């Protein structure tokens, strides 16, 4: 299991939201490239980027910054989500050096898009499932859908997606602990790896996730806990590697 630091981008700055609300953002840095460098220096094995403006606009807004980060760290696997709705966007990101594109809203609204991406870019597509009380939320979490997270994940498991990022949006940015039960249940049920996200707060969360990693949890995205220093990237990864 690897720790995946998150850099959420809003108007070119590195921010954290609470429960996905754009009006509740905290700016942690105005230099996302330097922020990426900080995580790389601490042994980061993969980086999670979110184009928050893009998620709301439905098209890339912070692509310039994302390309800068890719260019600065060419060996670092990077996954990017937010506003990816067309093949052209995916092509541009992959050409810029992004390893994985995360498809969220479009996976719900236009599943054929995922099928097409998986056949054109096998191994580069991750599905992002954002759930609240087990139901999928879309459009930058501003809308709910009538799909359960489990049904959506099962729908994509045999399409060739590289992983599923499962985010509990009731917990994201709230520092209230990760939803271990729901994450583990999903990992046990589907035939692709799961990346846990949302609510990771302290080493207790890391330890609890690590204890169930064999259910198929390949990584965990950490945001606010790194920025507020309740988790040390190096120490937490060392713990995982030794246990």
């Amino acid at each position, binding site marked *: 299991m690897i720790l995946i630091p998150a850099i959420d981008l809003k108007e070119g700055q590195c921010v954290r939201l609470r429960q996905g609300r754009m009006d509740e953002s905290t700016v942690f840095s105005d230099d996302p490239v330097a922020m990426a460098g900080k995580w790389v220096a601490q042994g980061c094995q993969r980086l999670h980027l979110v184009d928050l403006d893009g998620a709301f606009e439905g098209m890339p807004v912070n692509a310039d910054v994302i390309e800068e980060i890719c260019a600065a760290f060419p060996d670092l696997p990077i996954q990017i989500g937010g506003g990816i709705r067309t093949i052209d966007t995916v092509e541009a990101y992959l050409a810029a050096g992004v390893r994985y594109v995360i498809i969220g809203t479009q996976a719900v609204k236009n599943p054929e898009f995922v099928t097409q991406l998986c056949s054109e870019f096998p*191994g580069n597509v991750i599905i992002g499932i954002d759930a609240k009380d087990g139901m999928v939320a879309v459009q930058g979490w501003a809308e709910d859908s009538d799909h359960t997270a489990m049904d959506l994940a099962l729908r994509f498991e*045999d399409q060739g997606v590289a992983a599923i990022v499962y985010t509990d949006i009731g917990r994201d940015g709230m520092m209230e602990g990760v939803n271990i039960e729901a994450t583990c249940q999903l990992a*046990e*049920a589907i*035939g*692709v*790896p799961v990346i846990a996200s949302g609510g990771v707060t302290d080493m207790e969360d890391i330890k609890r996730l690590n204890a169930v990693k064999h259910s*198929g949890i*390949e990584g965990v995205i950490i945001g606010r806990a790194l920025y507020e220093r309740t988790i040390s990237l190096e120490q937490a990864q060392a713990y995982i590697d030794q246990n």
Partner: protein
Amino acid sequence: MHTTAVVDYGMGNLRSVVNALQKVAAKRHNIILTSDPRQLKQADRVVFPGQGAAGDCMRAIDEYGLREAIIDASRNRPFLGICMGMQVLFAHSEENQGTDCLGVFNGRVRYFGDSHKDQSGVKLKVPHMGWNGVRQKQQHPLWHSIEDNSRFYFVHSYYVEVEDVSLVAGTSDYGFSFTSVIASENVFALQCHPEKSANAGLQLLRNFLNWEGQA
């Protein structure tokens, strides 16, 4: 009914393996999770997963009194080893300062090393974790409908070094080419996780449930 027993020797969560098998099982297939050697002996097929360290696995196998039943199954019935369940079929593992294993096959299990590098000298992270291609090295019923070089999901720090190269059914690259799949008569075993390998993995499990144990 055809019963497929998934061996549970207390080394962690096996729901993923059971769920994946149930997903591809036909009505005539009954999938059970068991720690009981008698149930293993009665099963038509045996799936032998494993996770954690070799030393812990071998200790657990003996604590559960499963050694003889596992070896027996590996000689007589369609038998699928997964990850650590492949490694401990061999005679010896380097893990935990050296661990004697089940010895169904000659060969040993080696560590990738702390300074594992690719051919251009770039350091490779150990464990080897993620999707990687598997080159099919022999024709086998378990490769049915799975394209050569299909990608499977791996998480491991140790790899198998066989003595008898005719065992090799698949290889993968991580710094060098290593044996990622073996096959011998009624045994098929993989270093990767078919239960986490999307369509290729599900197809392999489906093939296993339809396999009568002949290469």
